């Protein structure tokens, strides 16, 4: 035990050393892609050399994660000094009051040196200073395959058809005319205004139920189904890989991707996304910025001054020039626009020409609801479960509903007092009931039983701190109006979230789906587990080898396997479809773009993940069955099936039932697989189970109160389920 203690002490000391720092440490959280991170880090090291009393620590987070971890951090009163991200995050952050207006700390003249696009305003206040402008979509074309890019959509289709070829004559298309991440609304959004009207009104309301959106949907469907110039399934990675390997002539992508293609040694050109022939209008890419915002919690004047110094450095011509030269971004500082680094960069010149037809990226928080409903309904259209006309109608309805939910501040009603009263009564009751136990407890600490206390207390204090306390905290949130607008000032409002949840038909359909998910998964886990255990135990030589082999899926970390399976289900490049085509001569399945197959894909992944546990449990159970029983059965001339049915199975049950019960609870709450394999519920939010739906409501739509209520309901369902099955088992045993 002594060694254990000293080791722990040692580790604590080690970690203590790391967090100790003499100069002032500033933090910057960002979501820059790989190439940009290198430049950032170089710039920051220069800054540290110039300011020896400051240390800057940069932390990379993926966009969504940056948002959610910053929210948590800022709410806890801490977080980084500066946060760098796309302009559309300032709407939500400003609504939550977790970023501070730059106008309060910077002189007015400062903003004048930047391109107006780089200093977006939300409610007439500056919340961000951009390091560059752009982020706009354009048409990239492979100069090896194509000399002149198309100018109109008619030309695009004609060239696309010419370029889409089956070069080796095996009946499969080897080269596509056009590829892009067309399942993501951001990538087709430029077309919507070109077909008639923008998707949001000037004052930030959704405007989706329009002929323009309907025509856009039809246009993409035609590209895919009628002209067949884009792949049937194409996410960002696929588009990227096809383009890089000369397997696509044209690509719609943004300026951030240039470095990647240059790095791959490609000869590519850029052009405007072609003019829509039927309306004679240019598609309008969304032009935005990514920039720095100030944490509201930085109040210490010294720290604030240092932060401002850092901001001014990061947005200075000197640093921007570094970024322009190394990764080719268009600087936001107007002083640099005439610099040779910009003037002589052909790509940047074309890009600023493309920007002339762009529209600024909306920054209001509502845009999140619009993107989300657009994505959901559009993916349903792509999967063929809605017509384009229905899709536009539904998208509008859903966007309005989501925005309403997001901006709703529920007022406390009578039930709020009931809850507070009940909580008080419950607290007093617990005190009253446990008054003698409490006295006994304290007495017991000195009494003969104190051994038990010392054995148990440390573990239960840990469990209390880590699980029980947060659990009650969640119950409190579930009765509150905690959401986007009440981030800092939520209060208990009543049972509203519970009522909303259980009167929502969507909740019940998800509930049914979760049951199906659980039952199917656990059924396969248990049957495959028993099947393999019996065969390994009875037939196979080298039992240890096979046992080890089948443990592999369990041993590999889940976040790795989930992403691996997602890759394997890819329609064109996934090994699963290639296997189906090459060996079984079946046509490829569009696994991830149809709701049913996507859900099946999640189930297959989870079955793969879960059977080893059950197999091990079953193997253990088999070893405990006395051999004499089988010998008796031989004498009775029982066949293999009868032996299994009447000896193995009944004696395995006591082992398998508790394992299956636990398996049900784990599977019911398994977020990872659904979230990672189906890419957060795609297509069209149709692969959600209850937990992933909760996760989305909390972390993507800011409805914490509602999400907490649903998770309490999930908890109650599982408690009821396990109590009833434990009782059933107990009855069976005592009968």
């Amino acid at each position, binding site marked *: 035990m002594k060694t254990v203690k000293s080791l722990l002490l040692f*580790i604590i000391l*080690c*970690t203590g050393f790391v967090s100790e720092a003499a100069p002032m440490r500033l*933090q910057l959280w960002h*979501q820059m*892609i*790989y*190439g940009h991170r290198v430049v950032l880090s170089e710039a920051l090291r220069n800054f540290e050399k110039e300011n020896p009393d400051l240390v800057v*620590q940069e932390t990379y*987070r*993926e*966009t969504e994660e940056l948002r959610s971890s910053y929210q*948590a*951090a800022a*709410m806890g009163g801490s977080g980084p000094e500066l946060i760098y991200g796309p302009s559309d995050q300032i709407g939500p952050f400003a609504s939550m009051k977790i970023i501070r207006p730059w106008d309060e700390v910077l002189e007015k003249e400062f903003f004048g040196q930047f391109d107006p696009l780089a200093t977006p305003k939300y409610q007439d206040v500056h919340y961000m200073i951009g390091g560059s402008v752009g982020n706009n979509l354009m048409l990239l074309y492979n100069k090896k395959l194509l000399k002149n890019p198309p100018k109109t959509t008619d030309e695009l289709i004609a060239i696309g058809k010419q370029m889409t070829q089956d070069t080796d004559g095996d009946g499969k298309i080897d080269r596509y005319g056009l590829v892009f991440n067309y399942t993501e609304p951001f990538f087709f959004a430029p077309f919507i205004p070109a077909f008639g009207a923008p998707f949001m009104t000037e004052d930030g309301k959704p405007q989706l139920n329009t002929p323009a959106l309907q025509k856009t949907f039809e246009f993409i469907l035609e590209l895919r189904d009628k002209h067949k110039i884009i792949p049937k399934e194409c996410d960002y*990675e*696929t588009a*990227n*890989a096809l383009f890089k*390997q000369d397997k696509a002539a044209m690509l719609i992508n943004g300026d*951030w991707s240039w470095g*990647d293609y240059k790095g*791959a040694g490609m000869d590519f050109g850029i052009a405007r996304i072609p003019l829509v022939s039927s309306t004679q209008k240019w598609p309008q890419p969304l032009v935005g910025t990514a920039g720095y915002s100030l944490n509201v919690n930085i109040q210490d004047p010294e720290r604030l001054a240092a932060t401002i110094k850092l901001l001014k450095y990061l947005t200075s011509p000197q640093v921007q020039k570094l970024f322009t030269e190394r990764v080719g971004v268009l600087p936001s500082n107007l002083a640099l626009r005439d610099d040779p680094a910009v003037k002589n960069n052909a790509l940047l010149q074309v890009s600023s020409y493309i920007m002339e037809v762009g529209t600024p990226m909306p920054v209001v928080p509502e845009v999140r609801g619009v993107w989300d409903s657009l994505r959901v309904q559009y993916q349903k259209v792509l999967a063929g479960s809605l017509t384009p006309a229905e899709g536009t109608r539904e998208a509008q309805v859903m966007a309005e509903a989501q925005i309403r939910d997001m901006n709703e501040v529920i007022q406390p009603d009578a039930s709020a007092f009931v809850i507070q009263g009940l909580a008080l009564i419950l607290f007093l009751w617990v005190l009253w009931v446990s008054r003698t136990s409490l006295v*006994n407890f304290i007495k017991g600490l000195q009494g003969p*039983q104190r051994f*038990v206390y010392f054995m*148990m207390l*440390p573990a239960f204090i*840990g*469990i209390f701190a*880590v*699980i*029980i*306390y947060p*659990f009650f*905290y969640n119950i409190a949130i579930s009765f509150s109006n905690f959401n986007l607008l009440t981030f800092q000032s939520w209060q208990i409002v009543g049972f509203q979230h519970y009522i909303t949840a259980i009167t929502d038909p969507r909740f019940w359909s998800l509930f049914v789906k979760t049951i199906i998910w659980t039952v199917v998964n656990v059924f396969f886990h248990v049957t495959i587990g028993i099947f393999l255990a019996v*065969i*390994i135990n009875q037939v*196979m030589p080298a039992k240890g080898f096979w*046992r080890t082999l089948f443990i592999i899926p369990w*041993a590999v*970390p889940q976040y*790795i*396997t989930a992403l691996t*399976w997602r890759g*394997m289900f890819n329609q064109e490049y996934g*090994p699963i479809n*290639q*296997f189906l085509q090459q060996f079984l001569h079946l046509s490829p399945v569009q696994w991830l773009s149809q709701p049913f197959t996507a859900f099946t894909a999640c189930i297959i992944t989870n079955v*793969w993940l879960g059977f080893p546990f059950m197999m091990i449990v079953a*193997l253990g*159970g088999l070893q405990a069955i006395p051999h004499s029983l089988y010998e008796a059965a031989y004498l009775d001339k029982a066949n293999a099936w009868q032996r299994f049915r009447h000896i193995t199975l009944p004696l395995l049950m*006591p*082992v398998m039932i*508790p*394992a299956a019960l636990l398996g049900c609870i784990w599977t019911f709450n398994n977020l990872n697989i659904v979230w990672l394999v189906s890419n957060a519920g795609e297509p069209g939010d149709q692969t959600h189970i209850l937990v992933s739906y909760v996760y989305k409501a909390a972390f993507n739509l800011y409805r914490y109160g509602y*999400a907490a209520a649903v*998770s309490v309901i999930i*908890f109650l369902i599982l*408690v009821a389920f396990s109590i009833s099955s434990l009782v059933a088992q107990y009855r069976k045993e005592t009968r």
Partner: protein
Amino acid sequence: MIKKFLAWVSVLLFAVFSIYPILYVLSVSLRGDNAFQSQSLEIISSTSTVKNFVDLFVNTEFLLWLRNSVIVSAATTLLGVTLASTSAYALSRYRFRGRNLMLFSLLATQMFPATMLILPFYIILSKMHLIDSFVGLFIIYSASALPFCVWQMKAYYDTVPKELEEAGLLDGCSRWQTFYKIILPISSPALVITALFSFMASWSEYIIAAIVLQDPQLYTLPLGLRSFQASLATQWGLYAAGALIVSVPVLVLFISISRYLVSGLTMGSVKG
């Protein structure tokens, strides 16, 4: 004969099913040109290189992440095993008020969607100044693996005959000594399982690590690997190579203890 043949065929089919995804990761990690997609089913092709593995060790902070992960997992495992073995022993051997409630609430902790606990975690940790420190992680990891481990250990202790302790007490051992010198050594299969679960809970955990650790110098392997992924440009080759290396220790651990796994995981429920 036919039966044997069928058994072989089905076992081989399942073997392919269970190891193919790992081979697929291997194949991605060996593709030199960062090409995630390929239209062939070959695992190793003529263009395969080990460049990604070399890059991983030379050009990234992989060794630092590895060190951090080892520290976190080792401490979590130690803490987890200590707490689970002692508290489960008390639950198994002593009858006291609230014991059944305690046992059920341990099970019930598994029923609440874990992701909803993130926000409260953050608030607690930042109030205790445990953000950016491994101590916060030890506590969360070991405590969240505890419920399962305690159940597991308790089921095992239940199968150990009481007479052993009685004999020990007669020979003049204290209660702690009977536990430490007699019960613990014969519980090694269950202890190994508990250690394995605590280790796995910390070795591959991502979500909590991401909110607790903000300083890149403290990143654990999952966080480090995740930094190869960006929303619009993923370093697939590096990611796959890293993923393979991350899986190796867990695999080795599983293989070396698979003997204990079978007895430790089921002993309790069979006899209990």
